[in-house]
């Protein structure tokens, strides 16, 4: 037990550095995924037919194939077409493009739940379609989506671990390096797991706080988590 606790002292700096990279990957992937996911969801609900289909196809492809395959295509495949990224940018892109598909589904579900009636209410006072989306639909849809959407940041944080396979220096990569120094795979990876767990708890608390902060009195949002 003492040797195990000693790992935090011995590799603490490395773990922290790795955890920082992991959080960065999560944040950037989540942000790219949110912006793109929102556009996909809006395209599916309000776009012209062809755009609806294109968005649906994007979502189907990115949800229907392994993230690792997407990551390898971006990092190893695209350079053959003359588009090369650094490891970190490839990781941001893969995580973001993939997360977008999932976030689009969460958002689309709640946009549909808010429904056409709210849109008509907005239009009836003279708002344009996009004004109604911005001022009426999205403020409600985003709140409605929040409890189930909160799965995504947490799932993404854990998923980032695969990027050590293209040598991004995240927490997982730091763990691997420590493991090959000590040869105590169980102990090191348990320590790494603890660091992930702490981050997940912190993120979860942050999301719960966000949920409380944005809650509208009397507007019922059942929690599906």
């Amino acid at each position: 037990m003492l040797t195990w606790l000693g790992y935090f002292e011995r590799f603490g700096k490395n773990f922290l550095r790795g955890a920082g990279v992991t959080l960065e990957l999560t944040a950037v992937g989540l942000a790219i995924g949110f912006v793109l996911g929102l556009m996909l969801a809006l395209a599916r609900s309000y776009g012209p037919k062809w755009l609806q289909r294109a968005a649906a196809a994007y979502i189907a492809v990115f949800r229907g194939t392994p993230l690792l395959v997407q990551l390898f295509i971006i990092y190893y495949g695209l350079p053959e077409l003359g588009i090369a990224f650094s490891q970190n940018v490839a990781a941001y892109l893969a995580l973001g493009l993939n997360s977008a598909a999932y976030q689009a589904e969460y958002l689309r579900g709640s946009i549909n739940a808010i429904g056409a009636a709210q849109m008509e209410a907005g239009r009836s006072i003279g708002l344009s379609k996009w004004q109604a989306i911005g001022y009426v639909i999205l403020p409600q849809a985003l709140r409605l989506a929040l409890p189930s959407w909160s799965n995504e940041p947490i799932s993404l944080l854990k998923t980032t671990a695969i990027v050590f396979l293209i040598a991004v220096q995240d927490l997982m990569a730091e763990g691997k390096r420590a493991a090959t120094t000590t040869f105590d795979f169980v102990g090191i990876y348990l320590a790494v797991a603890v660091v992930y767990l702490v981050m997940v708890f912190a993120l979860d608390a942050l999301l719960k706080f966000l949920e409380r902060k944005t809650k509208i009195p009397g507007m019922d949002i059942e929690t599906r988590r």
Partner: protein
Amino acid sequence: MPKPILTIKNLTKTYGQNVIFQNLDLTVNEGDTIVIIGPSGTGKSTLLRCVNLLTRPNEGQIWLDDLEITAKGTDEDQVRQHIGMVFQNFLLFNHLTALGNVKLGLTRVKHLSDEEATEKALHELSRVGLADRADHYPGQLSGGQQQRVGIARALAMDPRVMLFDEPTSALDPELIGEVLEVMRKLALDGMTMLVVTHEMGFAREVADRIVFMEKGYIVEEGSPDEMFNHPKFDRTREFLWKITELYGKKEKEAE
């Protein structure tokens, strides 16, 4: 000489094979309250939705004052500003307070400053007796209060005409009275109103004309006295009798 605010000519609306109404004519004069009655599925809501351009008629024209709003290239958003709509299910914006609901159109459509919009919105809320509920969210209001906010939201845009689609039929009986009272006051203030309702007490007392629609046709229209006391058609008499029987009880409870 009465001035027509809303003129509907030859209006036809179909959904696929389903003809909702055909060659419908209706004129609403300035300051008039027209009550439309008729059985379920007759196309009353569809007619109001056509007027507000929430759905497009297949044929026919609608004029708002001198502007043909069904003409190609009409700015729908511009038109809707001038037509107030009150929905059966209130359809308040649930993420905004009562004040926020009334202000949204003022700031975003009419581009009033925040202070101007607040002042005007508070004025409209007090018109419906809800100034003291300005900072309540829809979820914190009763159905009757929500509907009154819905009315204030529409009024705030200073519409030429107000459309009401069964504004009280989603309400508990004891809450119907407060909404009808607001509508009665509006009518007295000279607002032009087109109202779909089953509230015969309101129709009898407030309507300048009652329009009886059935299966997509206007069977008969006339003053409340004509419609209630000497209708031309048996169908009108039957329907009015049935509806008074059915809803009259509810109305009594409400008083």
